[in-house]
């Protein structure tokens, strides 16, 4: 991978972590916040495909794991799988409009949060109540869905110069 792309993606991830901690974590709805680092992973999958999306998802997840108190590697595993599956699904469907980006961001974020709760249970973290998981999935999905078009734009900037860009019409 082009070192400049790596540097730009790294910069986007660190900036997302700072924004998440300093700003977005303060703005909560039903005690649920947007998940910018997950969004970075999903946007990478949309822009650069499942393989690179998975790598970015893994790195973004590790950055979260370093800042929260849950089994180390759990978020990395979840984000990596979410990004891979989204990237793979995107190869099978016709790419659409800005609205479809929002819907994709919503669905992928909601499923990633449900996946996080399930994987957490598998590695011994007590699961929250199903109602709470659903609330978090839906609200975080809405937050991230609304932010997805912007995230895709930023990620396209980060990946510029790379030969295998997708979503060129977006």
């Amino acid at each position, binding site marked *: 991978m082009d070192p400049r792309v790596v540097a730009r993606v790294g910069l986007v991830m660190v900036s997302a*972590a*700072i*924004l*998440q*901690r*300093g*700003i977005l*974590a*303060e*703005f*909560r*709805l039903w*005690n*649920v*916040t947007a*998940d910018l680092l997950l969004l970075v992973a999903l946007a990478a999958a949309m822009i650069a*495909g*499942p*393989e690179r999306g*998975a*790598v970015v998802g*893994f790195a973004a997840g*590790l*950055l*979260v*794991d*370093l*800042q*929260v*108190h*849950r*089994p*180390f*590697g*759990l*978020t*990395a*595993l979840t984000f*990596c*799988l979410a990004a*891979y599956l989204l990237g*793979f699904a995107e190869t099978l469907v016709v790419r659409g409009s800005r609205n479809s980006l929002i819907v994709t961001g919503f669905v992928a974020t909601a499923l990633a*949060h449900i996946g*996080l*709760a399930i994987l*957490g249970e598998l*590695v*011994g*973290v*007590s*699961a*929250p*109540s199903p109602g*709470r998981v659903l609330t*978090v999935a839906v609200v*975080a999905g809405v937050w991230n869905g609304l932010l997805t078009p912007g995230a895709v734009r930023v990620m396209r900037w980060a990946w510029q110069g790379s030969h295998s860009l997708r979503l060129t019409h977006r």
Partner: protein
Amino acid sequence: MAFSRRFGRRRVTLVLLILTSVLLLTLDARDFGPINGARSGTMGFFAPVGDFFSTLTRPVANIWNGAFSYDELERENRQLKQELSDRKGREVQDDLAVKELEQLKTSLDIPFANAMPSARARIVSGGIANFDDTVQVDKGSSSGIKRGMAVVSGAGLVGTVVEVADGYSMVKLITDRDVQVGVKVVEKQGFAILSGRSDPQRLSGVVNNVSTFTAGDVLVTSGVEGSRYPEGIPVARVAEITLDEIAGKNTLEADVLVTLTDLEFVTVILMGGV
């Protein structure tokens, strides 16, 4: 052919990443030292930056949270009025209730913290992710804070220190799903273990002796041997006890005394810890 080769490479990458994640999970489960070091280092970097930005955005965030929590504030207000009315009635009717009220007043002055060495700290940011019931405070190992120490506020127990850097610490709130608190009712026999469920203000636990607990009772830390919390710290107020006939168990639901979503300062009790 080319598609198949490319798909195969993708799968290899994915499998490698999954294996790495599993390896990290295993190392963390074995309390691998470098992971804790990396977490402390990351907190030392991000906490001051987050503190700076959250100081700038807090006024706007307060307006935001006030606007979206209006119903909740109104409900809390009604509940408080109801509680005050109940307590006034009981004061007149029952000497025992008066005694209980005195005990509550004493506990609100947090003598538990006054009698012990402590460090006052400011909350610099909440948890960054969902399902993450932690906050970060602006005091760390340089103030004598260690992992496992209890954290309280004027109204009661807040949580436990789980990560420590030089000038910052991470506190896991008692509403976290993996935190368990042994509690009892003042001057009554019987204990219960409450745990969080990622609900911002609720704890729950299974109890055997239902008669020990009644709605409205204030639960304090039991301080039994091996407990990480000193005895007598107010934790929650019993909201309801429900019987699950199928499972044959009584579930106790309790409302946390401290409003955890609206904290600014906390006190770390400098006892215990590792």
